[in-house]
């Protein structure tokens, strides 16, 4: 294919960048598919995944990059440094790759205390050690005071492909099962509460972790049946599954009562008028498996540390085409769309 035929038209027409363009929902997708992909890659119509698979001189590998801007820097259950390692490890893992090496860029704000920086570097070192990935390269930039919320971190990871699994949304078929690795919403709600604007007291902790051990256990038990995986970070489970439904031109039907969730997440979402399916996760992933592999996959996850609550939450169906439908045990149904903008609490 020549460069000339690969360039797709730019369709991004928004007048300015809004917070919504970074929230992982519809606006983010429009920005990537309408501007970045056509100009930088040239094939906006190809399903976009969490990591790119490349073949260099006959060696297959996966590459991904991720930026981390989180406020506050530390929160119950984790911190920006830990997120920055786990996020990239997870993007590779759900693409069927084992992170091998990582490069890191720090954007630091003048005035950042050495204590805070030291703690985050240490958090990264520990997370990298736990995930079995080496941090081999880096860069540092310092910006004026007040310009970077303390620090921003970008990590880029390369990984080797895990044998025995092939992730492709085009392989998803009606009747396939949708599995989830554990309870949703912990990270997003923890961050919301850690900002201190709400006087809620909960025991919630961010779920940030490497999901690689779970993915490896899953592949060992049900590799040939795995069609698709994704870690539902910003935009939550609803956004990931809507992307899947759109990419594979099928419908996703979820059983609401099966979706695992801590009571504190449910309670906070009820009070604030948020949909837990739109809340960010940092240590969970979704899997679509062929129905005959579903039990083996769930068993393998349940037997692995941290996968005890993994379960089937839904099925791939012919309809609703390109959408996600949630059903309740009493027969109510509703469509769940991608997140539009940031999740905003509803008060009045």
């Amino acid at each position, binding site marked *: 294919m020549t460069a000339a035929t690969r360039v797709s038209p730019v369709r991004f027409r928004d007048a300015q960048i809004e*917070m*919504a363009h970074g929230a992982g929902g519809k606006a983010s997708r429009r920005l990537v598919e309408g501007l970045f992909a056509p100009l930088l890659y040239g094939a906006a119509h190809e399903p976009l995944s969490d990591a790119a698979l490349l073949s260099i001189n006959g060696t297959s590998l996966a590459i991904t990059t991720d930026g981390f801007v989180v406020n506050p820097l530390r929160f119950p259950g984790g911190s920006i440094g830990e997120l920055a390692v786990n996020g990239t490890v997870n993007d590779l893992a759900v693409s069927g790759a084992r992170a091998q090496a990582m490069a890191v860029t720090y954007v630091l704000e003048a005035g950042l205390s050495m204590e805070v920086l030291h703690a985050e570097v240490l958090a990264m070192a520990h997370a990298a050690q736990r995930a079995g990935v080496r941090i081999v390269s880096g860069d540092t930039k310092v910006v004026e005071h007040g310009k970077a919320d303390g620090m921003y971190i970008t990590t880029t990871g390369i990984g080797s492909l895990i044998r025995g699994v092939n992730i492709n949304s085009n392989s998803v078929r009606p009747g396939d099962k949708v599995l989830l690795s554990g309870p949703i919403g912990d990270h997003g709600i923890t961050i919301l509460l850690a900002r201190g604007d709400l006087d809620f007291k909960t025991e919630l902790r961010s779920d940030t972790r490497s999901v690689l051990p779970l993915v490896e256990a899953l592949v060992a038990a049900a590799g040939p049946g795995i069609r698709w995986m994704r870690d539902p970070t910003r935009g939550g489970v609803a956004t990931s599954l809507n992307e899947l439904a759109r990419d594979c031109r099928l419908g996703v039907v979820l059983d609401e009562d099966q979706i695992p969730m801590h009571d504190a997440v449910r309670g906070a979402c009820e009070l604030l008028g948020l949909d837990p399916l739109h809340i960010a996760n940092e240590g969970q992933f979704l899997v679509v498996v062929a129905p005959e592999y579903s039990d083996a996959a769930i068993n393998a996850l349940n037997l692995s540390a941290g996968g005890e609550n993994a379960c089937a939450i839904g099925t791939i169906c012919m309809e609703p085409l390109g959408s996600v439908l949630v059903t309740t045990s*009493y027969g109510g*149904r509703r*469509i769940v769309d991608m997140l539009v903008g940031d999740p*905003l609490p509803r*008060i*009045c």
Partner: protein
Amino acid sequence: MKFVDEFREPELVIRTAEEIRRLADPSRHYRVMEVCGGHTHAIYRFGLKDLLPENIELIHGPGCPVCVLPMGRIDDGLALAQQTDVIFAAFGDMMRVPGTNGSPLEHKARGMDVRIVYSPSDALKLARTNPNKHVMFFAIGFETTAPSTALTLMRAKAEGIRNFSVFSNHVTIIPAIRAILDSPDMRLDAFIGPGHVSTVIGCRPYEWIVKDQYKPIVISGFEPLDILQSVVMLLRQLQAGEAKVENQYKRVVPWEGNRAALHALAEVFQLRPYFEWRGLGFISQSALRIRDAYAEWDSERRFEVPGVRVTDPKAAQCGEVLKGVLKPHQCKLFGRECTPEHPIGALMVSSEGSCAAYYNYEHRKTATTSRLGRTA
């Protein structure tokens, strides 16, 4: 989860739905208005329409405070916030509501100091921590949120916090229901009455509906069982030829309302002679202004208000949808020019707005089925 799961118990929900089917006269068509946006949201979120027989039609009412706000008020509020050293504080509900030159969030992206707060007292806290700025709280809501605004103003006065003011858009529910009933194109059989508003005003103010119009009204909670049980109660009244005010939401709503909250309202607010509602036009005695004793904390008196009046885009039929004359998808712009991402009217923004609720939870359920039917 306590106090939630009991009201979503599948078996009870199914049994109540069966009771509704038994009670509904198949030869009749029932038009029931749920006044409150919270009910509209719950009906779509829990898929309750799937549980009701086809001859019970739920009409979405005007009880979404963001939706009934005319665009000019948003423009006025944002214009005041353009001044230097002003912090514009509002609930998350307001943030994506379009003004003529964009929503509060879009103004924030252009550099305006816009903050999301969870209560009016959070806005007052902002004023305390930013003594060199003026914090303007853009207040919205029916009698549900107005008492907390009132208490916040009382505290601001008591503490002498002078860098704080309220731009009051508080409205009252009863005149809106009256306006809907006076509208000639409405033929309603019964009302699902607002739950949260009634925790404050109680059940008595609805008694005139019964007297004047002979329409049953049941004050309802927001869980699936609450709403279905309210429909059962309404059907029983209709069958018996009765029309009275009943309280399904007794666990929260006292018949006489909340005296302390009503007292705070009376202390701080008085009725405006008239106020413009989107879609419903000017309704007399339907909104709250801040009393003279609190004039110093009234944004409309502290600052020069432009008093913008903006007519809605001609093609948009927000008014008809707000009154329940049109269903959301019957509006010419629905799902095409007007979507949650690019809303033209506020009904498409607030999750309590019937257009957003319909767009998010409902329309593709049917749209995709029919499309599949054609291509299969």
